[in-house]
Each structure stands twice: as C-alpha cells, then as structure tokens.
C-alpha cells in the first residue's frame, strides 16, 4: 500500500538539449556518439538508490556511473536535475511485438491428410526466427517504448511451436535504406504453447500436442544421430540422411542447450510441460498469468523461472458492486457532483435500492459461495507475492501495448498484492534479463547496455510519475505524454 513520496511539480528541474529537437521522437532516431544525464537519482537492481548521479553512455554502452562527475565534453547532456529518476529499462521476456499477426484460424482449411498435416499447417515451425521480419517501427514496438521497455524477446505468433524467440532493442539507427537491425541476441529459446493446429488437423487437443511434441523430438534424435554417424568415422557406406530443417532446428533443444519457452495457463499445464522436460532433459521457462505457486517446489527444484504477465484481475462482481456503493456516499457529500438530470437521478435511485438490499436476503448457499470466492480473490491478489515467497525467479512477459493498463496492473500487485516496487522493478528488468541469460541488460552499471528510463518523479511506479525518455541501446526515445 505504501508509495514513495511523490515530488511536487515545483521541484521539476531538467534541461532539454534544444538541438535534439525533432530527432528525439519515438519513430526517427539518429545515433549520437555520446550521451549523459547529470545530477539524477538512480535505482539499481539491488534496491540501492543513489542521488546526484551522472551516467554517461556511448555507442550503446554505459561508460560511467558516478556521483558528481562531469560528463566528457563530447557527451551531450540529455537531462539533469535532482527531480529526475533513472531506472533500468524494462525487458519484455516474451512477446510477438514487431512481427506480423498470425494467420486467422478461421481461414484454415482441412488438409488432405488431417492426421498428418505439414509442419506449417500443424503449427510446428521451430526453425522460424523473427529477425528477418521484425519491424522496429511497428506500432507494437512503439507502444513498448512508451511504457519503458528497452528490449523485447519476440517470436512469431502461431500455434504449437511458432518459432524461436530473439531479443531486440526497441530502437535502432535509421539510415537512408531503413532501420539497422535492432537484434541483440538471436534464438534465445523455442516457443511452445498448447495451441492446436486449428480446424480439422492434428494435433487439436493438449494431449495430442504433448504426443506430437514427443514424436518430433524422437525424430530429431534419430536424425541427429544419423548425421553424427555419417559425419563421423566408420560410416562410409551408410546412406546419407534426408535433411529436415524443422527437425535440425530442434537439436539445441534436444541437447539441452536452449530452453523451451512454454506458455501455460494453469499449474497442470506447467506440470505437463515439466513432464516433457524430464523426458528430454531440456530447460524450461514458463510464460503465464496464472498462479503457479501450487507447483512452486517443483519449479524451484528444477530451477525453472516464470515470466509473469501483468494484467489487473477483475474483482468478483459483488465485491465491485460493494466498492461502487461506497462512492455515491462520497458523491452525495460533494455537492459539486450532484446529479442534476432525470437519468442520473434514476440511476442514483437504483443504486440506492441496491445499497439497501441487505446481505441477509442472500441464500445460505450464495453466502457460502461468496465466502469462498472472497478467499479466492484474496489468493488471486496475492498470487505474485506467493510465488515470490516460494522462491521462484519471476520476470515479465506479454506487455499488451496499453501502458495505462500495464501500470495499473503493476500498482495493483504493489498495493493489493504486497509486492514491493523494487521487486516489481527487478521483475521488469534484472530478473527478466537473468531469465533470458542476458548479462548486460537490466542493470545500470558500467559496461552494461545503455537501456534505461528517465522519469520525472521519485517513485517510478507512482501514477504521478512521468516517463520522459526510454533509452534503448543508447538511442534516446522521447515519450509522448500527451
């Protein structure tokens, strides 16, 4: 429930470098050789808050983080002032941003052999990498920039195995021929989800997806062995294997070198994925908005992290109603908002009637229902806290492009779910970087990639804080707060 002190507008003090002008827009950038911020407050991933800090970065790398140090003369001062806060830029651990939408399933026809459709028709595309199609100027990437994301682990949308994910910055150098590649690291993991092939094609159900996945790896295992035999000694007479790009792309998964990034909707789904991981011995990263705390011991034991999706859950209708009923009381007291037309009056009358409806009129059965639902609601609110307390490594994924909703959800878990703002910041930055195995992101230390958010305010989570810039790979993105 606690928020850090908000700073008043009067203390707002920063310098905009005028010549940046229109270059600092969210859509068109020019790489500048060197930037810096001065006299700002910085929150590190370990929770320490340092004031009067200078951060200097060049060519996308943080060169210096220190107190009261003057920037090199070649560096351009982006902002300065003690009213400003710098935090690590967020990292979206798994998303489809910057990539074309998936084909509409309603357009799927029935394949000639429904039981054995092509890989593509079955939604089995683990060989697919997003690099060639990722568009840094896509509106979904711009939405990430505005929310403070400096990097996105993006993969194609699709079905069972839509492809591998790669990590992209949310900004890149624009040249005459377009943007340079914002790719930071390719092929971080294999995306998996319980999505059937669609239409009358195999696999359609979760249990069939499990079986199809296993058979894929059996086939990949045999092919890898065959290739190894042929390429090794003593197999001169052996026929060469028929190459298969899909199966060959799975070798790193089969060899435990890359994780399965599994999107799940329940602990039971997660357990099923862990069954696959146990059989084939590969690491797993879960992407979910579900409470996986019931299987936390299994996740902790197998060092399986979770990328959590922040969406503010809806309270039960009857709790919402009770909350709303409180508000008219305040409104009545406030004469300035008194209803002055017939419709409003009718609505108020209706509200008044429902207010007077005593709980005693509820059946015993419904009272019992509400009692248990109240517990379920408490558990839902505390889900993230419970998972953290269980020792799970939690990151973030699935930002949906609406920063208002996103920050509302963050504040919900902070205020209602007892997750500290520092824990949330870590989830959004350093934890996600760690989960993805990216060492130089998520922190504001010398040598790290220059990904950060410049905030006007002292509490990054506060409703009153204003995000001014997102810095991604050293590129400065001005956030349009209008």
């Amino acid at each position, binding site marked *: 429930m606690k928020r850090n002190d908000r700073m008043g507008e009067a203390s707002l003090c920063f310098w905009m470098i005028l010549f940046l002008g229109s270059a600092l827009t969210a859509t068109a950038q020019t790489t500048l050789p060197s930037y810096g911020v001065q006299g700002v407050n910085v929150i590190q991933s370990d929770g320490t808050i340092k004031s009067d800090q200078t951060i200097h970065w060049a060519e996308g790398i943080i060169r210096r983080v220190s107190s009261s140090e003057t920037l090199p003369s070649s560096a351009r001062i982006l902002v300065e002032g003690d009213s400003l806060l710098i935090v690590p830029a967020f990292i979206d651990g798994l998303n489809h941003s910057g990539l074309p939408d998936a084909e509409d399933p*309603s357009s799927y026809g029935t394949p000639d052999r429904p039981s054995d459709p092509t890989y593509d028709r079955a939604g089995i595309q683990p060989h697919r990498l997003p690099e060639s199609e990722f568009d840094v100027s896509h509106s979904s990437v711009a939405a990430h920039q505005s929310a403070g994301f400096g990097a996105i682990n993006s993969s194609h949308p699709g079905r069972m195995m839509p492809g591998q994910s790669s990590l992209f910055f949310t900004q890149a150098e624009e040249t005459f021929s377009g943007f340079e590649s914002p790719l930071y690291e390719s092929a971080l993991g294999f995306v998996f989800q319980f*999505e059937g092939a669609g239409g009358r094609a195999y696999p359609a159900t*979760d249990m069939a997806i499990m079986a199809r996945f296993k058979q894929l790896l059996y086939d990949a295992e045999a092919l890898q062995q065959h290739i190894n035999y042929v390429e090794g000694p003593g197999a001169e007479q052996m*026929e060469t294997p028929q190459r298969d790009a899909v199966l060959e792309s799975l070798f790193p998964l089969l060899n435990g070198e890359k994780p399965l990034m599994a999107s799940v909707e329940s602990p039971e789904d997660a357990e099923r994925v862990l069954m696959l991981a146990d059989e084939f011995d590969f690491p797993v990263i879960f992407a979910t908005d579900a409470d996986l705390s019931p299987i936390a011991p299994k996740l902790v034991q197998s060092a399986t992290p979770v990328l959590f999706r922040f969406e503010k859950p*809806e309270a039960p209708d009857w709790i919402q109603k009770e909350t709303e009923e409180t508000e008219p009381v*305040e409104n009545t007291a406030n004469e300035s908002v008194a209803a002055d037309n017939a419709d409003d009056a009718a609505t108020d009358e209706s509200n008044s009637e429902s207010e007077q409806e005593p709980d005693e009129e509820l059946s015993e*059965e419904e009272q019992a*229902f509400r*009692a248990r639902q109240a517990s379920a609601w408490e558990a*839902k609110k505390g889900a993230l806290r419970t998972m953290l307390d269980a020792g799970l490594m939690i990151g973030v994924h699935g930002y949906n492009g609406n920063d208002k909703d996103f920050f509302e959800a963050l504040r919900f878990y902070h205020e209602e779910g007892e997750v500290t703002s520092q824990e949330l910041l870590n989830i959004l930055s350093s934890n996600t970087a760690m989960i993805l195995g990216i060492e130089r992101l998520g922190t504001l230390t010398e040598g790290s990639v220059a990904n950060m958010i410049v905030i006007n305010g002292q509490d990054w989570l506060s409703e009153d804080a204003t995000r001014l810039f997102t810095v991604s790979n050293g590129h400065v993105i001005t956030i349009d707060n209008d």
Partner: protein
Amino acid sequence: MTTQNLTTLKGLLTALFLLSFTSVLAQPTTYDGPQSVLIKNGLVKTITQGDLPNTDVYIVNGIIQEIGQDLSVPTNTPVIDATDKVVMPGIVDAHSHLNTVSTNEATSPVTSEITIKESIDPNDVAIYHALAGGVTSINLMHGSANVIGARNATLKLRYGADQFGLQFQEAPQTIKFALGENPTRVHGQGTGVQPRTRMGVERVIRDIFDDAIEYDRKRETYLEQKAAHERRPNRVALPVPVAKNLRLEVISDIIEGDILVHCHSYRADEIMMLVNVFKDYGVENYTFQHANEGFKVAPELAEAGANASVFSDWWAYKFEVYYSTAYNAAILHENGVNTSINSDSNELIRHLNHEAAKVVRYGGISENDALKMITINPAKQLGIDEYVGSLEVGKHGDVSIWSADPLSIYAVNEMTLVDGQVLFNRKTDAPDARLDRAISHDQSFDDLQSEVSESIRGRQDDACMEDAFKLFESGHQSEQSHNY
C-alpha cells in the same frame, strides 16, 4: 477519510466477515495419503467371500489388514461406527470421462500415441460427485471418435490429489478402440479419409497392426545392431537409426499383451469382427464397451475370453443402438462373460448401484452377482482386481458405507473411503464441495449454478463424442490465441 480509504475499509470488513464464514464452510476433505481406520460392526459385503454381519474392517495405512468380529486395534485408531450400515468395496466404473481436460482427439483415425494421463483435470468437482455415489476407481477414457483412440488412465478418486496422485499406479495400461458409426462419421464422413464404412474400420486396425509389427522388427534390429556396434565397433557396422515411433510402439504393446483394449462397440457383427481380428494377431483379455448387441454373441465372447462393460438399459440414442435389451448384462453373465455395468456419464456415475439393481430386476441374477458388476468385474477388466473390487485382506482400503442394501432404491451412500481416508461424508461435508484451487475469483453465482446443473443432469446422448462435435460445429477444436 478519503473515498479510497472508506472503500478499502469496507472491503476489508467484508473480507473478514466472509473469511470467518469460510472457516465454517471450508473446502471438503482432500486426500492426505493412506490412512488407518477401523470400520466397526457393519454388514460387510465382501463381494468375493460372502456377506459378513456385525463385522469389522481394519485398514492400516490404506491397506485392509483384517476383517472379522470385535477386532482389537490400537487405541488411537479412528473408528467409524457402521452399526446398521452396509459396508461394501468402493465401486469401480470401467467407462468414464469424468474429469478429462479433452476427451477426443478427433483428427486422426489412430491416436495411440496420445494418453489421457496427460489430460486429467484434478480439480473437477465431478470427482467428488462420483465419490458421493460410492465410486472409488474409474477408467478415465478417451472418446470414441477414432478407431484406435488414446491410452486411458485408470484413476483412484483421491479428491484433492494432483493429476499424478489420482493415477492408479499399479493399474496396467488400457487403450480405447471404437467401432461403427462414430469413427466412420468423424473420419470417413467428416474428412473423407478411411474409415468410411465398418469394413474400413477393420482395415484401419489390420493396417496399423501390420505397420506396428514391421516397425517393431526394424526398431529391434536397429537397437540390437547399435548395441553390438558399441560392444565391437570395429566388427559391427553402424546401423542407420530408426526413430522411436510412439504410435506404433503402443500398438506393438497391444499385440504383445501389455496394453488392454477397451473397445466402444454396439453391433454384434462388428463385435465379432474385432474378435476375429484379435484372434489373428493373438490379442487377448479385451473388453467390449457398451456392446448393446453383445447378448447376440455372448457364447462367442465367452469362448474368446472377452469381457463386456455395458449399460443396464440405455439405448436408441443413435441408429446402431436401437437393437438393445435390458437383459443384455444378464445374458452375457449367464453365458460366462465377465460383465460390468458402467456409467459413461457424470450423472449416472453417482448411482451405479441403481444400475446394478436393474440387472437383478430384469435379468434375475443374484444380488451379489449384480454388485460384482460394479466392483470386482470391472476391476478385472481394468486389471486391478488384485487391489480393489472386493473387501479382502491385502487389498486397498477403498470402501463405501451405505444406509441400507445398496441395491435398494432407498439406500444412500453415507461415506466413501479411498486408501482408508474418508473423502465423502454425507453427514459432515460442506455443501460446496469444490476444491479451493478450483474456485474462480470472477465466476458469478448464477454461472456456477448453471455449470453444476449442466454437470449433474442426465447423460448426453453419445457422450463419448465430446470435443469431436465441437470440431464439427466450429471447424476448430482449439481456437484460443495467445495474444501476449
């Protein structure tokens, strides 16, 4: 005080009030593991060793240790007074889709690579409803859309356990086959692939059996050569790898007798077709499910050693199910076919005792033989009769305790134990039997009532086709999309 604070305070008070109410109406007893208990002084229907009046059943760590009168047990042993009650083994249902996540993978005529063990919903309140009917073990089956469906999951209804804890670990693997209208409608009529006719159904089975035999030969040869090469790399050449094929390995296991077939069937001709196919491939110990025309070929089934798991009096829900009789179970039984009565329904599973009673009413078989049809006979069909299906020393402490003779229409199941733990208690259980983890924070009371009403109403015609019909109607069995 601000509006927000007022709202928060009211919400807090409401939550506190309701949480205190919750402590009274907590979730039902959930499975904690095998327990010890003395069931004292009941009329014990052992099923296999007669009825024993004024008898105790002593369960230690989930296993029946002693059955007798006035048993001495350690003083701290919990005691259930069964005076004037009837104590019988937990009911076994050989055909159920009680708590599947999905029931039919209706996209391929053969899906033996799939297992229902990966489609168990451990949170479904239907498990509790079945316990209320005295049921303790079920055959959780794939549907009947495919000629060869998925492998099934034999479950013990350990309500509250997870998807692994529900599984009957000692049970042999079973698999679903299906003949007749369903697979021909789904595949032949639906997508234009074999089988379109009953002839085609036989062809599908024979072809996949032949493929499995060929696969098994190649795979075994490969593995042997690989092992030989590893022992003597200079003398034995490297073999070309043969990938493991899960679908064919399962079929191979059926032929080897390691997996028991449970086949959805109605007509006598198709039943005999499968008997002959299995004879050709040496498959034994299989069960015909439904088998409404089983009575026509009862002697042949007995000769083949086939089992039958049937409805007591359910038919006419589609063309191939018209030629039926309420004497089916009795005729099969009288001809020496091991016969069980099943539910195939989340409603009917709550009163299988009534279904068994109908066999006495129509077929005139003994009451004990009728009870066998919902206990030891289905246990035999599932290969679990060594553990459940009767009250005998050494068997699992799976028990139901009735207010009267369970075949009476007035009898009520009062208590159900699994592994010695009471998981249904009519007197003390809360009205809301949902597990805490199954409660939705945003479901309305009305929606819940509709859901419960739907789940306990009578059997839907052709319940075995769940999911397959959805596929027909929408053209898509899975359309949800992950919009990150």
